[in-house]
């Protein structure tokens, strides 16, 4: 009970300290605001989730998830957004609002790519962004955190060119609410196993990273599907239709629903990519999640070692 009132006090203090200035995300599960920290004058991102409570207080899953985020924060990783504050404020007997205060970076990779003058980003810039991105991902994966929704909008880039991953670790807290809400989510960075609703783990993030790697060269997304099946069709146009033995068992979409395709050489889709880059990209865009390269191995791939 003491804990509950301490949280309530914090909640009040928090409402004084952080002043929202605009809504930057949200749905039925909660809202994300850009806010100003009155103490430092800096912008922060306030993410709140409404969770159901009972006589024992917050659900254990929420407590665990917040504890994990706090544990990650202690590493002060350069490629992960900072978690600055966490706060729970009871709304009713059955509902509590959990607010997480994150560092706000005023540029994402989508904007960064949009701003890149023709003919696109220099090779050394792409390599530097990739090193940082994979470094952040390797950190998350080594702590058994799967991002699950990696896309240019949640890869942040500071004015000094420092990459920071955002919006990780909340997936589970959100997912139970999201299932009830018709939120439009992009399919473009989804791995085949997610699209097929098969098993999924850390390799899903490597798939997304591969799509983003290609996008850094192309300055437009690699696979722009409009439905799950359409997204898979677009993927197979590039990587070829997987063999029957690679197709996961027990999934609704069957291999025979797709037309046979031979893999195309990557440079057709990704101009200017060097041979080592192409090798890494191929290993990231492997249909079979078990054969896909890990973040740790990607970090030590020859592409990352090349000098410009």
């Amino acid at each position, binding site marked *: 009970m003491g804990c509950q009132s301490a949280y309530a006090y914090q909640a009040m203090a928090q409402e004084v300290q952080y002043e929202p200035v605009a809504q930057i995300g949200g749905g039925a599960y909660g809202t994300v605001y850009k806010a100003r920290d009155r103490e430092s004058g800096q912008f922060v991102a306030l993410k709140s989730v409404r969770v159901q409570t009972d006589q024992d207080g917050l659900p254990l899953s929420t407590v665990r998830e917040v504890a994990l985020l706090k544990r990650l924060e202690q590493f002060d990783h350069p490629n992960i957004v900072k978690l600055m504050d966490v706060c729970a404020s009871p709304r009713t007997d059955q509902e509590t609002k959990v607010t997480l205060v994150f560092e706000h970076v005023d540029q994402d990779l989508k904007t960064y790519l949009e*701003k890149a003058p023709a003919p696109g980003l220099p090779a050394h810039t792409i390599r530097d962004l990739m090193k940082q991105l994979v470094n952040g991902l390797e950190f998350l994966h080594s702590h058994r955190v799967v991002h699950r929704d990696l896309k240019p909008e949640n890869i942040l880039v500071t004015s000094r060119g420092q990459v920071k991953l955002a919006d990780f670790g909340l997936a589970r807290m959100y997912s139970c609410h999201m299932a009830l809400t018709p939120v439009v989510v992009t399919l473009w960075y989804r791995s085949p196993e997610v699209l097929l609703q098969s098993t999924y783990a850390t390799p899903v993030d490597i798939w997304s990273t591969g799509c983003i790697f290609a996008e850094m060269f192309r300055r437009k997304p690699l696979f722009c599907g409009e439905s799950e099946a359409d997204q898979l069709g677009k993927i197979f146009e590039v990587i070829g239709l997987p063999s029957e033995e690679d197709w996961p068992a027990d999934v609704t979409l069957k291999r025979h629903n797709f037309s046979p395709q031979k893999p195309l050489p990557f440079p057709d889709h990704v101009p200017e990519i060097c041979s080592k880059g192409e090798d890494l990209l191929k290993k990231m865009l492997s249909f079979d999640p078990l054969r896909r390269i890990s973040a740790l191995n990607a970090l030590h791939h020859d592409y990352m070692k090349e000098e410009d």
Partner: protein
Amino acid sequence: MRPEEELTSAAATGNTERVKHLLQSGVNGNGVNGFQRTPLQVMMMGSTPVARLLLEHGAVPNVRDCSTGTTPLHDAARTGYLETVRLLVEFHADSQATDNNNCRPVDLAQLNGHQEVVDFLLSI
């Protein structure tokens, strides 16, 4: 959602296409959202394309935050996005404006170690 609300949110998320569409369909570039902030005050500071669209549609750069006295130029300078700083100045943002802590944009750039921004602001 009110159109002003939509425009500020689109600006804050750096959604250039959406900002363009809303401005072209006549949404007021100086309208405030529920938090009494204009799109330029809350925009993604690194998004020069969004800043340009807003300014070209008549968004007023010299607007102070109602609680901190900060102008968009203060925020662009503090976060170090030089292109946005240049653009705001080009559209007559006041480089000598002071916030409630009596800081000018150049002071915030200095404090945060954005030397290129400092050099630019001192050169004008």
